[in-house]
């Protein structure tokens, strides 16, 4: 009796663990945050054609370009253009940041790094 319960629990646990370990590597979902709020999430693996959209706030406008597997700020009316110069977002630990507009674009999902300095 007990052995069956234990085996069932074990099987469920192993299935859950296998699901967590074997799911495809993520990092293909880009999140767009403004002032600490998630405003949009884009699944980069599902994009077929280049997709352009704007994120508009009281502080200004960023035009974002998403292509299959990658994303960037194409243009912005911020003074420093650091977000545009950052180019394609490639690294899950180092987001694209537009400080003047308080906008952050980052890849979500697992990555070998937890954060980054420098």
């Amino acid at each position, binding site marked *: 009796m007990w052995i069956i319960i234990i085996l069932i629990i074990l099987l469920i646990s192993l299935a859950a663990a296998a699901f967590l370990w074997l799911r495809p590597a993520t990092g293909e979902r880009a999140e767009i945050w403004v002032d600490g709020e998630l405003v949009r999430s884009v699944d980069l693996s599902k994009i077929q054609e280049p997709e352009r959209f704007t994120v508009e706030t009281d502080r200004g406008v960023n035009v974002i370009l998403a292509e299959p597997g990658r994303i960037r700020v194409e243009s912005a009316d911020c003074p420093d253009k650091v977000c545009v110069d950052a180019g394609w977002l490639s690294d899950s630990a180092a987001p694209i940041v537009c400080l003047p507009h308080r906008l952050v674009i980052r890849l979500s999902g697992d990555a070998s*790094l*937890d954060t980054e300095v420098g």
Partner: protein
Amino acid sequence: MRRAFALALAVIALSGCAPRAQSSTVFAMDTVMELTAYGPRQAVDGAVSLIHEAEDRLSVTAEDSDIARVNGSGGGEVDGDTASLLKRALELCKLTDGALDITVYPLVRAWGFTTGAYRVPGEEEIGSLLEKVDYSAVTLEGNTVTLPEGALLDLGAVAKGWVSDRIAAGFREAGVRSGLINLGGNVMALGKKPDGSDWSVGIRDPFSEGLLGAVSVRDSAVVTSGGYQRYFEENGVRYCHIIDPRTGRPADSGLASVTVVGAEGVLCDGLSTAVYVMGLEAASQLWRENSGFELVLVTDGGEVLVTEGLEDVFKPMDVYKDGEIRVIRRD
């Protein structure tokens, strides 16, 4: 049978039950900050208020901060927190023999790094401004600061590290055993990750968009300074934002990037600037004569060096993966 039961328990214990991650993004101190705590929401909310309070008190540009008031009137009384940071900052200036100097602000301003209106000041201007630079002439008695005529304080080289210490302390008080604080490149890793492994902190390559490597840490700050982070160019010469307090000019010590790893955030923050200014030889000596921190150094020539405490936890990446890593040892 008993082994199967133990295994089932272990799998259950590993597959859940960790507190949920609470995160916040904060725009403050001219940078973007990311806070994550595995614990109560209040811990993160408390940290956000702490950051804003610290910015209000410590900003050199905000008009009514403690620092701006002291700079405007040559001294005065400051908040107890500001005084304790100032005390620690002055100790670090002394420890580094002035390679970190919290009175270098007149020169930082003259080069345009506070406003973005970059310029190369003339010899005479640099010479006369240098006369105002001397941390040892700053006095702190209780909460009262006195500055010599014309001197200006700037705690920018230590403030974020200090705030990361305060946030970590607040997290611990709130019962958070695992958390990650990244104040615009000033990282503080609290405890271990919820899965029990160490935090992996990537370090940027000073010469490209890629990575230099990563350090695995727990209960530790990781702070990087490098000339590549902010600079301007004029007539083909690159001028970086870290001013050598002894020459009044952008630091040119032969190092491209300095990462300091240790338990105390404010120490790591202050030392990252100081070590960048002092260069490889003086930095190695400072490390041998003191404890509480470890270093990852990249020279202008692309050579990578780590102090021996990081030998096993630093993992080179990208173009450095198969390159040589020199280890700096105590003896």
